[in-house]
């Protein structure tokens, strides 16, 4: 099976080349037979890559340690689940996995459109094959072939790093990849539009679902990564501004900007060049993210030497794509002229434009900060880096401005808004924001950044809640429905708009959680069994923790474990018992000898905060684990209280809900195709007129 898989990967190469060539030729010469052949090659390459991926999986499941990739990321004792998902445990398999997902989305797109949008599809198929071809070439010729053999058969594999043996770490890469690859479809349609001259909003309308789906997966993928870091890295942190995290944030930022700016092109025929550039930029950033995540270019100092081949391949590809698209855009410049002008500084168009500038500004600063070591080395010969303080300093103000815009955008009028209607729409929300800020100040919260965030959050929530309320009330009155059916119908008649509002609320929830970190509590204790410690939370609760003791177990290799030491702590909240938390140290057989054991934390979550326990150190592991000495159970216990942190995960769920609503298909397909995203709200308007 594995040999078959390897073969399948090799022969996907000529077929991808064929597909690319006949797609472009067929589109240019309008030859339907060539186009059909190109579309079939999309299906065929996907089929072959599925066989290749199955081959890799078979190698893992069969413990085929003659393959470098299997020997590096698996061993005989590894749990079945992690063998199956070994395909994306490391760089090589991930690249094949990427090609597989891209092939899947390409096939889906071609199949969906086999009778539609025919002026685009030949070029779309050709572009998709070109990108797939790039990945095939990388896999086969840049020394990253997952089928590479060792030349001998290792007795056993190295095993999978225990930190990767975690649910979140398994689903985080695929989710991100789904996001990255889904964005290739809008990019392909954009190129097709440049080639066939249909440069109005058509290519955007056709790919709206793909854009939104890609954005959804990107958002969720990033949050999964945050959850993994929070649970597994043992510090209670979820974002470190490290190069890999930043790389996945970049396309998310530009995709969010894109989601907003396309609405302007759809309704007003403006920003055509801007949108073309944004879709190109976002695509390049997804390629850049793959490249950065799976090579080591940023961590190591002077790392050009390490993996030159793959770096050169990726950089050349990105440069070629950039150059090709630039040429096409310049060629089509006359047709990309704007149809209208911005009429007022104070309008929804203007708010969207500021949104774009801010998001791009954030993206630029993240990119700049991440690449700074390389840039400074090229210019000054000296590597200089910037860390989290830089990113926070630049991005906190930008983030707050964006948060405010999220409340301004929904209510400000298109084209031009006057002072009177600004007053009418914004006085209450601004008032609420100020009142909330004052109330928080009075109750003891004085941290300026946190206060500002919460104040603006209150403003945004008021704006959106009012929109929902006005709309529901009006509809209920006019249609004679109860509030619940009215709300349901209101939302269902304009899903993009209301789904979008829900997503804005989700973002607010997450910002509230980020601000909560200003009040994190971090205390360290040294305890013996029976000791009781107290920790106060910023929310006003008191946790009374009793260290019960350390229980140890020698696992002798079961699940790759040598031993476990579990510390049990009983928890009382404000005097009332709320159960027991455990935190552990684990020593795995797959760790290098002499490495310290790994920590598993204990978390107790409520809406208000998390209680986060870390077994930092065992006084005398030797005595208590190896000799079972029950007098040696002293430990270092770190206790963290993290206010509002669960609003991140809740916000993510809300984001998913809102996006699904926005994605939900309408019945009238023809209408849906030209439905601008900014349908004003009839019910809200009547409500406004009524009072």
């Amino acid at each position, binding site marked *: 099976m594995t040999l078959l898989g390897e073969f399948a990967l090799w022969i996907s190469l000529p077929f991808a080349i064929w*597909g690319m060539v006949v797609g472009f030729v067929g589109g240019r010469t309008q030859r339907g037979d060539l186009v059909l052949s190109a579309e079939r090659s999309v299906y065929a390459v996907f089929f072959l890559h599925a066989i290749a991926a199955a081959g890799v999986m078979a190698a893992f499941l069969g413990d085929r340690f003659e393959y470098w990739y299997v020997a590096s990321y698996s061993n005989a004792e590894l749990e079945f689940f992690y063998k199956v998902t070994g395909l994306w445990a490391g760089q090589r398999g991930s690249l094949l996995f990427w090609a597989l997902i891209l092939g899947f989305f390409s096939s889906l797109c071609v199949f969906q459109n086999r009778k539609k949008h025919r002026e685009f599809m030949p070029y779309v198929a050709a572009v998709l094959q070109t990108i797939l071809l790039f990945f095939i070439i990388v896999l086969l010729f840049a020394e990253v072939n997952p089928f590479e053999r060792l030349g001998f058969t290792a007795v056993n594999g190295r095993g999978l790093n225990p930190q990767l043996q975690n649910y979140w770490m398994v689903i985080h890469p695929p989710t991100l990849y789904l996001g990255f690859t889904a964005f290739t479809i809008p990019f392909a349609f954009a190129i097709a539009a440049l080639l066939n001259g249909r440069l109005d909003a058509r290519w955007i309308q056709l790919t709206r679902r793909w854009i939104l789906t890609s954005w959804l997966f990107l958002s969720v993928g990033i949050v999964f990564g945050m959850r993994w870091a929070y649970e597994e890295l043992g510090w209670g942190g979820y974002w470190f501004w490290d190069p890999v995290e930043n790389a996945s944030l970049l396309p998310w930022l530009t995709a969010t900007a894109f989601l907003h700016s396309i609405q302007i092109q759809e309704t007003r025929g403006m920003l055509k060049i801007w949108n073309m550039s944004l879709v190109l930029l976002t695509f390049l950033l997804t390629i850049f993210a793959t490249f950065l995540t799976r090579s080591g270019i940023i961590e190591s100092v002077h790392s050009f030497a390490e993996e030159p081949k793959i770096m050169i391949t990726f950089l050349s590809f990105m440069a070629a794509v950039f150059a090709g698209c630039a040429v096409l855009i310049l060629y089509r410049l006359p047709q990309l002229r704007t149809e209208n002008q911005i009429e007022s500084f104070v309008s929804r168009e203007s708010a969207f434009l500021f949104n774009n500038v801010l998001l791009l500004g954030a993206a630029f600063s993240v990119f700049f900060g991440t690449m700074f070591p390389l840039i400074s080395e090229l210019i000054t010969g000296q590597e200089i880096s910037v860390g989290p303080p830089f990113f926070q300093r630049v991005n906190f103000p930008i983030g707050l401005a964006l948060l405010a815009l999220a409340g301004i955008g929904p209510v*400000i009028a298109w084209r031009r808004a006057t002072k009177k*209607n600004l007053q009418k729409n914004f006085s209450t929300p601004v008032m609420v924001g100020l009142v909330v800020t004052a109330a928080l100040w009075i109750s003891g919260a004085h941290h300026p950044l946190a206060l500002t965030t919460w104040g603006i959050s209150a403003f945004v929530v008021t704006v959106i809640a009012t929109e929902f309320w006005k709309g529901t009330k009006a509809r209920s009155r006019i249609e004679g429905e109860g509030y619940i059916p009215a709300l349901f119908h209101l939302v269902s008649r304009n899903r993009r708009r209301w789904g979008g509002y829900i997503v804005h609320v989700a973002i607010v929830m997450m910002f509230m959680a980020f601000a909560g970190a200003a009040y994190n509590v971090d205390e360290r204790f040294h305890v013996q069994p029976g000791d009781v410690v107290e920790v106060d939370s910023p929310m006003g609760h008191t946790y009374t923790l009793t260290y019960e003791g350390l229980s140890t177990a020698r696992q002798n290799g079961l699940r790759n474990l040598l031993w476990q030491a579990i510390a049990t702590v009983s928890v009382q909240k404000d005097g009332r018992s709320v159960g027991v938390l455990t935190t552990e140290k684990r020593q795995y057989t797959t760790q290098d000898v002499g490495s310290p054991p790994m920590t598993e934390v204990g978390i107790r979550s409520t809406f208000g905060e998390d209680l986060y326990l870390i077994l930092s150190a065992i006084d005398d592991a030797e005595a208590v684990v190896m000799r079972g000495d029950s007098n040696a159970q002293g430990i270092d216990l770190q206790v963290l209280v993290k206010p509002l942190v669960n609003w991140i995960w809740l916000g993510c769920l809300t984001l998913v809900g809102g996006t699904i609503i926005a994605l939900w298909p309408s019945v009238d397909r023809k209408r849906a195709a030209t439905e601008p995203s900014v349908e*004003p709200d009839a019910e809200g308007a009547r409500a406004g007129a009524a009072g």
Partner: protein
Amino acid sequence: MTLYVGVALITAAVLLFILQPVVKGLHASLERDDDELTDTEARKRIALLSLRDVEYDFLAGKLDEEDYRSLKSELTAEALAALEADEAARSDQGHPADGDIEAEIARIRASLKDGVVCGDCGFANDQGSHFCSSCGAALADQTVG
């Protein structure tokens, strides 16, 4: 042995699948589909919807009267232009052009001036309509215009 068989089978199958269209002259359709909106239809749609936007922004209190009136006359002119462009495109393409078309245009002009464009589907209803003749939705209480 089975490996070679597998290899041969897969290669042959894929090759056949991909080359069949060229060899046998099978064609993918390259025609624009009938129910797709043309450029001019899409523009007309959007122009009518923008008019509706302005109506509702005013009703919701987002625009004051002066702005509303000037925007509305701008947009009405735009909508009429888009309408005429679309009709011209249709007759160019040889769609059946009845005398009814002229009546249609006149009716639409009238309803644009009277402001009973439907909130949901953009259909221009007759003056005094309470429900849209095209999609059945309730029309806004138009006390202005």
